[in-house]
């Protein structure tokens, strides 16, 4: 069955969450993400789920971790300042391998800055925001329809790898309304794997690909979940250097070893392109318009849209940019993913940066002049 809607990105996200099986949402109002909470407050009870407005973002994050261990898929939505508050508990979720989804509808930053304007200033906060070593997964949609499908994908990845997954979007995408076409046959839901209770059951068993099935509280596993360095039984083991090394390496490797499977990009016209533009999220819309326009002038320009900023799609970008002379990174900040691209490509290609802050999308004309400037240098 297929359905069409004319809705906001934030509403699409809420619909995606429900389609993915999210049955618990805890949040705190913050512009520009609030519509997600509002929609879910209305829709979750209709599917038997629960919505709670918590006292702050710290509490929201705690509540969804608790709900996830309670056996439901859980989500929260926030913006930059709220994400900063959540960071301690996000680290806890990585350490305890708790699947959940965090939606960050980015706004002008730092601090309170521009609540009603778009930006992409939290990309590194999603990557490194909590303390210590961990490997996050982040998705970045660039249309309302993609926002819906990426929300489902975020839940699926969270369950598959037992990690928190970020949905990094921004005000432009969150508040924009456009046509969304939903084809139910395209929706694929990954359920949580149920562990088997055996005599030698180990909740944090060391396995090669890193993910062990997750039990729910109340199912008789008597599991101890702790943010301390823990052994395979889940008991704290804080003084053994090897135990810590083994644990944290496994937590990172379960994402890194599957990096090529998790990460994805969308690209066009890259085969013959002299110049390739790399972007993610809403600026991609301007990039595509600019590329289509400039190609009519006969210039060989292609683009890569990063769907998963984290883990960074190194292999795909290396392959696609092989023949390009210039790579331009377009984003709505003063350089975040640019450094990641530059690190990857600096030995083979000239990497240029085109950032725009202030809250407005870069325009296709600005990007075209950026391309000309880069090629002229």
């Amino acid at each position, binding site marked *: 069955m297929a359905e069409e809607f004319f809705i906001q990105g934030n509403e699409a996200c809420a619909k995606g969450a429900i389609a993915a*099986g999210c*049955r*618990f949402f*805890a949040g705190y109002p913050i512009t520009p993400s609030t519509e997600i909470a509002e929609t879910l407050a209305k829709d979750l*009870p*209709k*599917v*038997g*789920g*629960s919505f*709670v407005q*918590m*006292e*702050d973002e*710290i*509490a*929201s*994050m*705690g*509540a*969804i*971790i*608790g*709900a*996830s*261990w*309670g*056996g*439901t*898929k*859980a989500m929260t939505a926030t913006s930059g300042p709220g994400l900063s508050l959540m960071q*301690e*508990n996000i680290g*806890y979720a990585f350490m305890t391998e708790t*699947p959940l989804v965090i939606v960050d509808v980015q706004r002008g930053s730092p601090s309170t800055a521009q609540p009603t304007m778009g930006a992409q200033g939290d990309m590194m906060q999603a990557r490194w925001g909590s303390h210590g070593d961990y490997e996050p997964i982040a998705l970045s949609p660039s249309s309302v329809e993609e926002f819906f499908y990426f929300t489902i994908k975020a839940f699926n990845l969270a*369950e598959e790898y037992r990690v928190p997954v970020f949905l990094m979007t921004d005000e432009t995408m969150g508040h924009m309304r456009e046509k969304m076409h939903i084809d139910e046959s395209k929706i694929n*839901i990954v*359920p*949580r*794997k*149920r562990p088997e209770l055996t005599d030698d059951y180990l909740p944090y068993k060391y396995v090669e690909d890193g993910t062990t099935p997750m039990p*729910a*509280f*109340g*199912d*008789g*596993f*008597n*599991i*101890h*979940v*702790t*943010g*301390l360095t823990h052994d395979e039984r889940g*008991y*704290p083991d804080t003084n053994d250097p090897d135990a810590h090394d083994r644990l944290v390496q496994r937590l990172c490797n379960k994402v890194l070893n599957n990096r090529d499977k998790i990460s994805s990009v969308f690209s066009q016209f890259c085969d013959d392109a002299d110049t390739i533009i790399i972007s993610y999220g809403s600026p991609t819309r301007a990039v595509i318009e600019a590329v289509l326009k400039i190609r009519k002038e006969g210039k060989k320009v292609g683009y890569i849209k990063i769907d998963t900023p984290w883990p960074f799609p190194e292999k795909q970008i290396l392959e696609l940019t092989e023949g390009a002379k210039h790579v331009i990174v377009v984003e709505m900040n003063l350089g975040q993913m640019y450094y990641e691209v530059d690190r990857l490509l600096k030995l083979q290609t000239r990497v240029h940066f085109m950032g725009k802050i202030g809250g407005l999308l870069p325009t296709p004309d600005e990007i075209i002049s950026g391309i000309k400037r880069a090629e002229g240098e």
Partner: protein
Amino acid sequence: MAEKNSKYLSYMREERLPHIFCPGCSNGSVMSAFLEAMEKAEMDFDNIAMVSGIGCSSRIPGYIKCDSLHTTHGRALTFATGLKIANKGLDVVVFSGDGDAASIGGNHLIHAARRNLDLTVICINNNIYGMTGGQVSPTSPKGIVATTAPYGNYDTPFNLAEVVAAAGASYSARWTITEMENLVLSIKAALKTPGFSFVEVVSLCPTYFGRKNKLRTPTAMAAVMRANTVFKSAADRMSEKELKDKIVVGEFANKHRDELSDVLEKFSVENSGDKTVVNSAYETEF
């Protein structure tokens, strides 16, 4: 003929004993009192889930053989909120310390009490930060010496049980560990209360509180505590001057109020019928 081992050990992860608590630390006593109260309240032990934050007292769930969530500092109540709402059938018990519940988690404490979700919170108030080595806590009495109050504590302490009662909890009580019988009965009452129930246990930290404050042994500390304990009914007739340095014990709230998970369930039933979401993460069809 008695069993050689304490009956409490059968509820505990024996392979982890002896626990890390210092000699004379009341955490172990409160753990036993909880288990005793749980037996008395005829709770289903398999159905109990424990949540704790950070601190000495928050290590307790790690020693009890049930599902336990050892979370971040001060946030135990937020995790417990999510857990209880996600699976209403669980009996969620939160162990917390005074720094955890009153300082970093103070906001969560009053809001959890306001929401009146069916949680049982046992707050072990030793008036000091034990795990970090003896700093003042928001419940440290005025004048005591701590590593961060070398000239004596100049702050006025929180009256936790009263704060929680005022915030709207269904049940709130305070006892000291010298009131073992009353403590057990009170925890039992808390477990049976539908709604947010809070039991503050004023307890001993001989290592960091006692040694700094010229109470060198656990028994000396306990003796001072017992001498300073005043029943609430008696305290109500005493002047503020007489109550100086006294520990008022008793029940501060015991009332019936709407409970949050019931309300949420009502919404859900009204809007969706009998759809259950317990363990829904394992389903593929909704």
